[in-house]
C-alpha cells in the first residue's frame, strides 16, 4: 500500500474518521497503532511481527536504562540494543552484500569458492525505523529523554504509518510528547496537511514518474544515447530523486498534520544550496542530522585536528552512503560526498576570502550551480546498479557524440526543469507565499487545490514507479 494507491484512500478515510470521531486520546492512540500495523502488514505480516518484537525489546531496554544506576549495566543494555538493531539491519540488508563481496575477494585472491546467497526479504523501512530506535535508546542512555513508560506510545512512535516506511526519521524527544497531547480539530492544520499532501502527490506522480521515462532508458544503455541526452538524463535524475523523495516526505508530513502530529521538515530547497555543506543541511535533513548527532559528533566531529575532522567526515558520509543500499555504488556515492565536504573545508580554510565572494549574488548563483553539478554527478553512482553502468554514463557525459535521443522531447524536459525552478523560487520567497496563500480568497485557493489534483490526474503515468527510497 502506497500513499497514492487506490486502497490507501479508503484506508486513510476510515482511520481519519475514526480518529477524529473518538474523543479520548488513548483510544485514538490505539486506532493509530492498529492502523499502522495494518499498513505495514499489508506488505508482509511476518515482517510486521519483527518490527513489533524489536520495538518491545527496545522499550524494555529503555525502561532498564532509565531505572538502572549501574554504569556497566547501562552500557550492557545499550550495547545489547545496538547489537540487536544493527544486527537485524546487517542481516536483512547487508548479509548478501557482505557474502558477495567476500566471495569476490576470495576469487580475486585465487581461491575457488562459491558462497550461497541467503533468501531474505528486506523488511520495508528497516533502515528508517532502526535509526529511530537507535536514536531513542541512545538519547535515553545519555539521559536526554526519559524512557517512555507507555508501551502503546512507544510502539506508535516507531510504527506511525506516515513516517514508517520512508521517513522522515523522527526524534523521540520531538514525537513522543505529541502522542500524549490531546488533539483538537484545527482547520489551519487540516489545510496545511492537505496542501503538503497534494504538493507531494504532484511532485511524485506528475514530475518524478514522468522523468523516470527519460532517465531509465539512458541508465539501461547509456552508450546508445547522444551526449546531450545523457546530460539531460543525469540532470533529470537529480530532479526525479528530489521530487520522488521530497514528494513522499511532503505526503507523510501532510498526513501527520491531518492527524494532529507535526513531523520535521525533511527538505529545504536543497538545489538552492550555495555549497555542499549547505546542501546537507537542506537534503534529507532527518538523516543528515541523525548522522551528525549519532555518528559524526561521537567520532569527534570537528573538535580535533583538520585530519581528524576529514576522517570523521569521510567515515560518516561513507556509512551514510552504505545506509542507502547494499552496494558498492552507494558506498562510492557516500565517498564522493565525503570528498566534496573535505574539499569544501579545505577551500574555506585555505582561501577564507572566497567565503566573502560566496556572499555576493553572483558568487551565490555560481555556488548553487557548482553544487548542483557536483551533486548531480554523484547521483550517477547512486542511480547506477553497478560500476559498469556508472562508467558508461560518465563516459557518455564526456564523449561529445551523437546517438539516440530521449523518449521525451527536450522541450518537455526543459519545461519540467523550469516548473521545478519556479516552484523553488516561490518556496524561497516569503512575500510570494503570503501573496499566493494568505491573501488569495478561499475559493481561489480551493480551486488551486483542485487544479493541482487535476494536473496530477492528467500527468500521472500509466505505470507509476514505487518510491525510490522504499528500497532503503
Amino acid at each position, binding site marked *: 500500500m502506497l500513499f497514492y494507491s487506490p486502497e490507501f484512500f479508503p484506508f486513510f478515510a476510515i482511520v481519519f474518521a475514526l480518529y477524529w470521531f473518538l474523543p479520548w486520546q488513548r483510544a485514538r492512540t490505539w486506532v493509530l497503532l492498529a492502523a499502522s500495523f495494518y499498513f505495514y502488514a499489508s506488505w508482509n505480516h511476518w515482517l510486521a511481527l519483527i518490527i513489533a518484537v524489536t520495538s518491545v525489546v527496545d522499550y524494555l531496554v529503555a525502561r532498564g536504562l532509565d531505572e538502572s544506576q549501574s554504569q556497566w549495566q547501562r552500557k550492557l543494555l545499550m550495547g545489547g540494543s545496538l547489537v540487536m538493531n544493527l544486527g537485524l539491519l546487517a542481516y536483512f540488508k547487508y548479509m548478501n552484500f557482505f557474502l558477495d563481496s567476500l566471495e569476490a575477494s576470495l576469487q580475486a585472491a585465487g581461491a575457488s569458492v562459491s558462497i550461497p546467497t541467503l533468501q531474505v526479504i528486506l523488511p520495508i523501512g528497516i533502515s528508517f525505523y532502526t535509526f529511530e530506535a537507535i536514536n531513542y535508546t541512545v538519547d535515553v542512555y545519555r539521559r536526554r529523554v526519559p524512557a517512555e513508560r507507555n508501551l502503546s506510545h512507544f510502539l506508535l512512535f516507531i510504527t506511525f504509518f506516515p513516517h514508517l516506511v520512508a521517513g522522515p526519521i523522527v526524534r523521540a524527544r520531538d514525537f513522543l510528547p505529541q502522542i500524549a497531547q490531546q488533539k483538537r480539530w*484545527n*482547520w*489551519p492544520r*487540516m*489545510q*496545511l496537511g*492537505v*496542501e*503538503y499532501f497534494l*504538493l507531494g502527490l504532484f511532485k511524485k506522480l506528475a514530475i518524478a514518474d*514522468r522523468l523516470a*521515462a527519460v532517465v531509465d532508458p539512458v541508465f539501461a544503455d547509456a552508450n546508445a544515447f547522444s551526449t546531450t541526452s545523457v546530460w539531460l538524463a543525469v540532470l533529470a535524475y537529480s530532479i526525479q530523486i528530489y521530487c520522488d523523495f521530497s514528494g513522499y516526505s511532503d505526503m507523510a508530513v501532510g498526513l501527520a498534520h491531518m492527524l494532529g502530529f507535526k513531523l520535521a*521538515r525533511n527538505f529545504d530547497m536543497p538545489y538552492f544550496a550555495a555549497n555542499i555543506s549547505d546542501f546537507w543541511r537542506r537534503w534529507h535533513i532527518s538523516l543528515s542530522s541523525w548522522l551528525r548527532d549519532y555518528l559524526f559528533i561521537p567520532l569527534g566531529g570537528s573538535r580535533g585536528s583538520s585530519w581528524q575532522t576529514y576522517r570523521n567526515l569521510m567515515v560518516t558520509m561513507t556509512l551514510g552512503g552504505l545506509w542507502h543500499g547494499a552496494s558498492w555504488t552507494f558506498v562510492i556515492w557516500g565517498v564522493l560526498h565525503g570528498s566534496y565536504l573535505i574539499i569544501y573545508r579545505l577551500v574555506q580554510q585555505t582561501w577564507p576570502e572566497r567565503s566573502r565572494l560566496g556572499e555576493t549574488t553572483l558568487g551565490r548563483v555560481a555556488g548553487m550551480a557548482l553544487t548542483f553539478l557536483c551533486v548531480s554527478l554523484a547521483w550517477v553512482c547512486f542511480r547506477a546498479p553497478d560500476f559498469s553502468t556508472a562508467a558508461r554514463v560518465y563516459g557518455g557525459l564526456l564523449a561529445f557524440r551523437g546517438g539516440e*535521443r*530521449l*523518449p*521525451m*522531447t527536450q*522541450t*518537455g524536459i526543459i*519545461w*519540467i526543469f523550469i516548473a521545478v525552478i519556479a516552484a523553488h523560487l516561490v*518556496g524561497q520567497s*516569503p512575500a510570494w*507565499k*503570503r501573496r499566493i*496563500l*494568505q491573501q488569495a480568497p*478561499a*475559493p481561489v*485557493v*480551493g*480551486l488551486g*487545490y*483542485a*487544479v493541482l*489534483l*487535476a494536473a496530477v*490526474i*492528467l*500527468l*500521472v*503515468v*500509466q*505505470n507509476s514507479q514505487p518510491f525510490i527510497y522504499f528500497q532503503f
Partner: protein
Amino acid sequence: MIVRPYANKSRATILWGVFFIAAIVGVCQIFLPRWANITGDANYTIRRDRLQQRLSATQAAHAGERPKLVVALGTSRVYHGLDGEVLEQELRAKLGPNVCFANFAAPATTPFHSMVLLGRLLRDGIQPDVIVIEAFPHCFEASRPQENYFVPNYISMCAGDEDWLNEHHIPVRIAQEDRRGVAIYDYRTEVLRLCAPHLLPKSEIKSLQTFANTSDTWGSGMIPLDRDPKRLQDALAHAKSEYFATYQNADWRDKHFDILRQLLEECHARNIATIVMTTPEGPIMRSWYREGGYDNFVERLAAVTRGCDSQLVIGTQWLEEEDFVDSHHMFAPGAAKFSARLSREAIGPALQQQAIARKSSNAVRR
C-alpha cells in the same frame, strides 16, 4: 514552505477545495471518458475523423440519405493493398454515388485487433454495411505468440477496449514490462495532446504523426512502383525471414479462428455483411507453404465463414509476382487491380444484397 492561514478562512478554503475537487474529478473521471468519447490512438482517430467528415459531406450531398459504408480491417497488406479511390469508383459506378469506403487496416494486426477496431467503430456510432476482414495465415499459426496484445505505434489500447473485449470474453495480455512501451490511451492522453504535447512521451507523440497521418483520404497508403532490384531483394529477404518458418510449419490453431468467428457473429447480429478474404500473395510466397498447409487453412476459414453466414473470398492467387514489393505487399498498380476486382466480385454484390435486405425489412416494418 507552507504559510499558516487563519481558522475561518482555512475551513472555507478546505470546503471550496472539496467542492472543486469533486467537480474536477467528476469531469475528468466520469464525464470526459463517457460523454466526450475521447478514445485516443491517433492511428484510429485520425482515420475515423476523416471518415466521419466524408460521411457527413456525402450524406448532405444526397438529400440526407445515409451513405452505404464499406470498412476494411486487416494488416499492412490491406493498408497498402486496398486502393480506396479505385474501390469507391467501382462501387459508385455500380451502386450510385452514395457509397463510402474506409480503410482501418494497420500493420502487424490480427483478428484480435480487428475485433478491437469493430468495437471502437460501433462505440463511435459508425455502423458499416459491409466489413472486409483480412485473414492473414501467419496470424493463425501456432508458432506465433498466442497472446492477444496491442502493438505500440500501430494500434494502441484505448479507453473502452478492455470492456469490449471482456464483454466477449477475449482476454487481453499486456505484460507489466510492456505497459510503458504500449501507449494506453484514455482521455488524459487526448487532453495532453491538445494542451501540452511536449509532456507526452515521444512514442505517443510519434504515434500522433504516424502512418495514419500520411495515409490518403480513405485511410490507405499506396506504395509507389519502384523496381530497384536491391530494394526488392532486401524486401523479399525480410519477408522470408518473417514468414517462411510459419508457412512451413502451417500448424493452424483455434484461438484466432475463434476470435474471427466472434467478430463475424457480432457483425451478423448487427446486420453487417462480412467478407473474409485472403489477400494476394506472389508465387514466391505461395511456394513457402508446406504441402497441404494452405488448403488446410482455407478449409478452416471456410468452416468459420459458413457458420457465420459470411462471404469468403480467396484472393491469394489474383496477382503476379511483379505486382508485389516483397511477394505480399502490393505496389499501387497491383493494389488498384486487386481493389477493382474485389469490389466487382465481392463488395458490390454484398452491398447490393444489403440494400435489398434493408428495403424488405423496411417494407415489413411499414
